[in-house]
Structure formats: structure tokens, C-alpha cells
């Protein structure tokens, strides 16, 4: 399929494999490790997901269901115990499935805590991957960094270090850093957590712009279910170790499934005509 961005097929992950690929070890060590066969020790089992190009999809679920782990799998930081992953229709065999290999396919990940390099200024943090991959001359990179900073409104903080910024601001810088790389798939881990209402409202049109203008495929892990409605995208849930089918916010709100009863109860209770 030409318009397919990402496909997960029967992906399973055991608790033991959660720690991920260690950069201290050669790839072969984790590849030839004994695989966990006990289903009780699996965090997720037979997860299937298909995302089209330019599509935005949210992944929800209770805490500790492995939402972030799923993003780490997609980003290549964790090798799934079983199953296969296709990026733009291309299958990466497990022995080559590392974060560096996935990053070559322009997959970006925004971490929950921002994960900025703490000894670099905001400006250098955003410029670091651009300089490393030699994406243009120094003037081009400067221009790109300024654009990214303007977009996320962190221009005034360009010369500050990450520890001088608040959590929300760090997250905005992290999003700017990912955006500057022109990702084709952008993975976001809780983008709205820690943001005030003003910045949250401003972030949503930005995500909307990215998918409309740049045709970026965006996968968002979130607790913020209302975001799904505002972005008008589908949401699927990690529930009982597996991923449900993606459906719209209204579908989940009105359905009678266990997930709806657990996670949408508050919305139903406060339901008002203009909601």
C-alpha cells in the first residue's frame, strides 16, 4: 500500500525486554537472547495498528498499560519480543531494528520529559541533529532553528539552558527540535501534560498544521481524551494487553464497551448539550 505510513503486526512485548536496546552492547547480544514464552509475563500481546500517511491517531489507556512502551517500540528503542513493524511499507528485520535505523526513516519522538541535552543551550539543542546530519549550511540551520523557535514561541529563551526552563517550556523546545528535523512520522508522548491551558490550546492548532501542511503522520499517546475530539482524529486504547480498533471520540463516548465505561464515565456524567 502506497499511502501506508506505519503498520504493526502481532507485536508482543515481554516485561523482560522493556529495558530496551543497550548502547553498551553489540546488537547481536539482545537479538539472540532467549525469548519469553510465558504469556503472563507479557506487557502487550498481538498489537496490530495501521496508520496512513498524514493521519493523526491517539493512543489512550490507563496508566501502566504500556502506552509509552508502544511508542518506544515504534521509535526502535525497544525491540518487540515478537511481531513485525513496517515503516512506509518497508519491513525492518529485527536484527536491524534499532533507533538509529528507524531514525533514518525520519521518525521523530518527543519524550514525556522533553529529554533535552542538559549542557546545551536551547538554540544548540534544536540545532544539534541538524548539524550532525549536515542538513544545510550554518545559515540554513540558523534559519531553520529560528523558525522552529518561533513556531513553538521559545525564541526569547534561545540562550537559556534546559534547567532554567519550566517543564512545559522544555516540552515545547523538544517539539521544536523534532519539528526542525522534518519528520514524516512524529511520535508524541503526552504532549499536553504539564502545559497550561493557553499553551495547550496553542499546541493543538500546531499539530493540526503539521499534518495539514507537511502531511506528517502523528501518533500521540495521551491521557487528554478531549484532545482527540479537538483534533478530530481517531483514538485507540491499550486495554487488556492489546490494542483496540481506532474509533472516533463520539463512538467511544456512546458505545457500551468496558473502555467507555471506565474512561468516558466522567464525560457521560457531565454531558451537556454544548459538549
Amino acid at each position, binding site marked *: 500500500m502506497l499511502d501506508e505510513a506505519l503498520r504493526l503486526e502481532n507485536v508482543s512485548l515481554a516485561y523482560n525486554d522493556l*529495558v*530496551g536496546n*543497550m*548502547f*553498551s*552492547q*553489540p546488537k*547481536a*547480544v539482545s537479538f*539472540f537472547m532467549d525469548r519469553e514464552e510465558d504469556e503472563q509475563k507479557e506487557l502487550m500481546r498481538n498489537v496490530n495498528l495501521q496508520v496512513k500517511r498524514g493521519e493523526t491517531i491517539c493512543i489512550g489507556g490507563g496508566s501502566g498499560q504500556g502506552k509509552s512502551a508502544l511508542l*518506544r517500540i515504534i*521509535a*526502535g*528503542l525497544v525491540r518487540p519480543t515478537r511481531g513485525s513493524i513496517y515503516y512506509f511499507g518497508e519491513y525492518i528485520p529485527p536484527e536491524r531494528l*534499532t*533507533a*538509529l535505523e*528507524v*531514525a*533514518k526513516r525520519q*521518525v*521523530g*519522538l518527543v*519524550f514525556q*520529559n522533553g*529529554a*533535552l*541535552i*542538559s549542557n546545551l543551550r536551547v538554540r544548540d539543542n534544536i540545532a*544539534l*541533529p541538524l*548539524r*550532525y*546530519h*549536515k542538513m544545510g549550511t550554518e545559515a540554513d540551520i540558523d534559519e531553520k532553528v529560528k523558525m522552529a523557535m518561533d513556531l513553538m514561541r521559545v525564541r526569547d529563551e534561545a540562550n537559556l539552558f534546559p534547567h532554567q526552563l519550566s517543564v512545559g517550556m522544555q516540552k515545547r523546545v*523538544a517539539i521544536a*527540535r*523534532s519539528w526542525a*528535523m522534518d519528520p514524516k512520522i512524529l511520535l508524541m508522548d503526552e504532549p499536553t501534560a504539564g502545559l497550561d491551558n493557553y499553551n495547550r490550546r496553542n499546541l493543538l492548532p500546531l499539530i493540526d498544521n503539521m499534518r495539514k501542511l507537511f502531511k506528517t503522520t502523528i501518533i500521540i499517546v495521551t491521557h487528554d481524551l478531549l484532545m482527540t475530539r479537538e483534533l478530530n482524529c481517531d483514538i485507540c486504547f491499550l486495554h487488556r494487553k492489546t490494542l483496540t480498533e481506532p474509533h472516533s471520540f463520539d463512538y467511544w463516548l456512546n458505545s457500551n464497551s468496558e473502555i467507555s465505561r471506565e474512561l468516558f464515565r466522567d464525560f457521560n456524567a457531565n454531558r451537556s448539550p454544548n459538549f
Partner: protein
Amino acid sequence: MTPLGKLFHKLGLFLLHLSLGQQVALFWNAIKSLFSSSRNFKTDTRNIILQTFFTGVEVFPTLFIVASLFGTVVIIEVISMMGKMGLSDIVGSLIVVVIIRELGPVLTAFLIAGRSGSSLTTYIGSMVINSEVDALATMGVDPVRYLVMPGLFGGCIALFFMNIIFSASAICAGFLLTKGIILLTGNIINIQLTWSYLSHEILGAITLTDFVFIVIKPLVFGAIITTNACYQALNIQRDVRQVPKATSKSVIRSFLYIVCADVILSIFYFVDYINNINTLI
């Protein structure tokens, strides 16, 4: 897979499961990453120079004091003892063996392992804990290239220069301090020491092998310290308590590996001696 292939596969996996095997692999990856497509001469040189200064310059005052005091002790002990035994003509050889050949490189490596190896482990270890290393990897920036490679080369270069400084200051500052002690105590230790005598003895005793090993030993020790420090740091499993553990492990393991490597390198001297014996006979 053929039986022979299986055997090699098992052997390879066994070696790669050992911590030493993984360190060799990390060292190899760091060297290999120097030639990767993202090489940038300017940035790399800057990173390596920064790392060299970080490793070398800050440890200099301690190193200088340790070297001069150590040199003084060795010079006084060797000259007074050999003088008593009537073996004044091997003073130079003894000083060369003790200071330049053995303890100079080893003590320098210990000082740098304690100071820079440990700080490299904490620095990279904290980055692992804050998932900064993961963030680097998801941006396509190879952590081995970005973090390990400058540390490795910077460590080797710094150790090379520090070793020369150590040996030089042990002999020169050691000589001056000994002279000072002789002057202050009215030569109570009863030794006759002049610079021309000492330098003549040392220069006469130094051989070509020594020069080769002045280069090789620091480079090997530097590679051991930094690879080990980076390995222990990258091996941390996202638990803050692992950082101090990894740091102490990095220093202690470095000491162990340095002494082992020193013994292995010294075997070449023995080979040298045996060849000399053959020519004598």
C-alpha cells in the same frame, strides 16, 4: 547452519556476553564511528580538544605534585641505596625502569581514571537516566559517536601528554626537590648528586624500546579508561542508584585492566631481555 558455524556462533555469543567482549566491541564501534558519513572535521576536532582539556588540564596540579614528590623519593632511595651497595652505575637504569617505564604511565593512568574516568561515567550515566541518550538515538545521532568517540580520543591524547609531563616532572622537579632537601638538611642523607650525572645516567640507560612504550602504554591505558568508563555508563538500566555503582565499578575495573595490560605489555620487555641474553651468549 553447519556444525562448525554453530560452534563459531556459540563462541561469538559467549565472547559478546562477557563484559570484556562488549567493551572491545564498544571500542571497535567508537573507532569505526570516526569514519561514518556524519563526520565533521571541525566539530569532531573541537569535541576531542575539549575532552582532552577536560581530561588533562584539570588533573595537572595534582599530577605535578604527585610526580615531583614521587620522583624525589625514587631519586633519594635509588642513589643512596645503590651508593651504599657500590652499584652507582645502574642508577640510571633503575630510574628509567621505575619512573619512565612502569610507574609513570601506571600512576598517570590511575590519577586520570580516578578523576576523568569517574566523571565521564557520571556524565554519560546521568544522560542515560534522563533518557537523553535515547533522545539522541531517536534523532539519528549515534550515541557511540557523539559521546564515546570524543572521550576515547581525548582520553588517549591527554594521557599521552600527561605521561610525558609526569616523567619529566618526576625527574626534573624531583632533582630540584632532592637538591633542596640536601641544602636544607646539610646533606644528612649523604648523597652526591649533580644534574650532569643524573641526566647522563638516565640518557645512557634509555633505549629505543622505552621510547616506543612511552607512546604505546599511555594510548592503551587511555583507551582502556575511557572505553571502560563509557561502557559502565551506557550499561546503566535506568535506575538512579546504578550511577554511583557504575562509577565505582568504572574506577576499580580501570585499575584492574590497567595493571593487567601493564603486565601484558611488559612481556615485550622480557622478550627484549631474552634476545639480549642470546646475543651475550
